[in-house]
């Protein structure tokens, strides 16, 4: 069976950080999972999932919480007529379902 990032971590959530940004938090749950995901998941992969330039992606690693956090400009501004997700909360699914052996 193909495994995903969600298989390795406690949870992944995403949310607007104001109307122009989205932030994605990966709660790894353990130091081991944190180190594993941190070594496997590249900025290029995350920005490709969101179809945004990698130069716009901010990455934070927080060992005390075993959290990896990504922030990037929303692919579409919140509330724009082409916006599909007013709160940006479902983008987390793209990372949850990202293949990771």
């Amino acid at each position, binding site marked *: 069976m193909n495994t995903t990032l969600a298989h390795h971590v406690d949870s992944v959530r995403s949310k607007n*950080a104001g109307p122009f940004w989205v932030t994605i938090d990966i709660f790894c749950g353990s130091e081991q999972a944190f180190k594993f995901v941190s070594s496997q998941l590249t900025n290029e992969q995350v920005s490709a999932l969101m179809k945004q330039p990698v130069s716009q992606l901010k990455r*934070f690693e927080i060992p005390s*919480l075993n959290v990896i*956090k990504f*922030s990037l400009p929303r692919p579409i501004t919140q509330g724009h007529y*082409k916006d599909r997700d007013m709160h940006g909360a479902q*983008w987390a*699914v*793209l990372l949850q379902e990202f293949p990771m052996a």
Partner: protein
Amino acid sequence: MNTRVLVPSGVLGLGFDRQALAAGVALKPDVICIDGGSTDSGPFSLGTSTSKYSRAACVAEWRDLMAARAQLNVPLIIGSAGTCGTDDMVDWMLDITRQIATEQSDANAPALKVALLYSEQQPSDMTQAFRDKHITALQPDIGLDEATITNCAHIVALAGAEHIQAALETGADIIIAGRTTDTAIVSALPIMQGCHEGASWHAAKIAECGALCSTHPTSGVIIVEIDESGFTIFPTAKGARCTPHSVSAHMLYENTDPFVLYEPGGYLDVHNAEYHAIDERTVRVSGSKWVATLPYTLKLEGAKLVGYQSTLIALLRDAHYVSNASAWVSRLSDYLNNSVQASLDLKPDDFFIEFRLIGVDATLGELETRLSEHHEIGVLVIVTAQTQDLCDEIAKIINPFLLHYPLTDDEPLPTFAFPYSPAQSSRGPLYEFCLNHIVSVETPLSATRLVSLEISTEPTA
């Protein structure tokens, strides 16, 4: 000295545990602070200057908070009144306050002193600030010109701690503030009373969503006590706990940077903050730093009207159409775009018809990575144009074809499911956020207006 702050919940209108409030009041906080809004639900609230939350829910909760305030005789502060924090919404909260004051009238109580903090900005003032180069873009830079400022339905500036402190200095029992940062309403009094500035802002950020920083997020009520070097925080609901993890993790929430938070007049830096459990439900935080910066800046929010919308929904259950939904929508879309242009004498840019296939990729659009089998698909049609009448006309042209359009010319007309009649709904005006900017001001208070008044609490005959 220590300042003890009670935060009943993340926002007025969302509810809180009444027993937890009583438990918090018993601890004799120095101030009660609650947020009234955010941009979280989108630009409609600011565009229309209306509350997202039910007035009845806000009245019911504000009634309890006013009673708690009267019992404690401490200030009660609401920031970002009525979701968007426009001047209208400050007046809306004042109206609610008057209504409750009448209900709670007491011949022995002194008149209620109310301070109103207005932070809405006039487009003419903002145009001048733009010409004077006092407005700076934040990242991502969405661009700005005078027409964008002029076209804003409403512009608000996010007030800071200095503005809430000015309101507190009037001796107000109740402060109704327009748009403020979520944190400023909480940090204002501790800073004013000489508590550690970094700790005051950090405490405010952790407490601003109420019990979201605890193990029982929906219980609402949080007590945070700030002193000369740090703060302690705990929830008051039975069984709820704050843990170093639940508290420190809240710095991640809705923040692009989990270590730095920009505020009017400076920024909070928590790189060196330390979180320790004091007991099973209380966390002590120290090491937070406040860095003051000049010039003093306020973040702006603006929403402008960009059009109107109508929507339709059809449901596909027929296996032939479910398996060919994308091809069907593509063919239908081409047909309708031509038909609408011809029928209404419109140009291609005069309207926009979007089909979103619910069950396929309605949530993620072109970002969707998953393909799977469906047995049912919802077809959400969103029409955008410059007037509601035009949207409704276009929706009525779409209606019969959304119901009956065939996949190919040589097959019988299908009929899909419409969930209600009429199939089309008028959505009303469409607003967009159009400012991601800060404005610098000579003195903090020059950007806002403070009004003091008294509400009689004497029973009316």
